[in-house]
């Protein structure tokens, strides 16, 4: 299952809190026509680089799907950044 939402939270030293909820499903919907348009180009590039295009697309899909559950949190002094992909 590809990730559908992501959360980004930033807290700065001046106690500014900023959180954003990213609807990734909308991003995928917007990218879908672009991906379809780019598909022939991807195929040609893969063939030129002697890479199986089907394997390349399958791997790209698996990487996208594998992003679900990724959590990155960095804190330094009073500043913190959090990214969580659902």
């Amino acid at each position, binding site marked *: 299952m590809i990730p559908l939402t992501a959360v980004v939270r930033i807290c700065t030293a001046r106690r500014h809190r900023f959180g954003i909820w990213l609807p990734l499903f909308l991003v995928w919907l917007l990218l879908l026509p672009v991906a379809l348009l780019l598909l022939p180009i991807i195929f040609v590039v893969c063939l030129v*680089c002697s890479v199986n295009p089907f394997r390349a697309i*399958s*791997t790209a899909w698996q*990487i996208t799907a*594998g992003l679900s*559950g990724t959590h990155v949190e*960095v*804190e*330094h*002094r009073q500043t913190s950044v959090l990214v969580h992909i659902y």
Partner: protein
Amino acid sequence: MNEHRQQILEMLAAGKVTTDEAERLIAALEKEPTSGATANASDVVAKAKPKYLRVMVEDAGSEGPINVNVRVPMQLLRAGVKLASLIPPQARDRLNVAMGEHGMMFDLSQVKPENIEELIDELQDLTVDVDENRANGEKKTKVRVFCE
């Protein structure tokens, strides 16, 4: 016929136990493998494959402490290994040379998707703890890598 069952039948033949008692003993014996299977199933659950690789870094830097907490899904690692196998041979050679120049003697062509499951199985029993101390004994950096 197993040893226990034979013993029960011998006891029955010798008249040490009644038919009912022998029947109950054999029934109890038959239940044993089921409970063993349950134990095995619970072992399997306990040894469930890890879902995430977690990397935690605590650094008492000179400009204040830095904490990093990263959770990477195993699915992403699997896909990453597949991606490594897609790298064209010419590019792979250049990558190997570049990594060798930085002290990482690692051949990317040896990383195969078939080996990733083995690697993940080994990772579940692995915890890496690295503590770097300052000259005065004060803790400087602590890195912890484990699966969950």
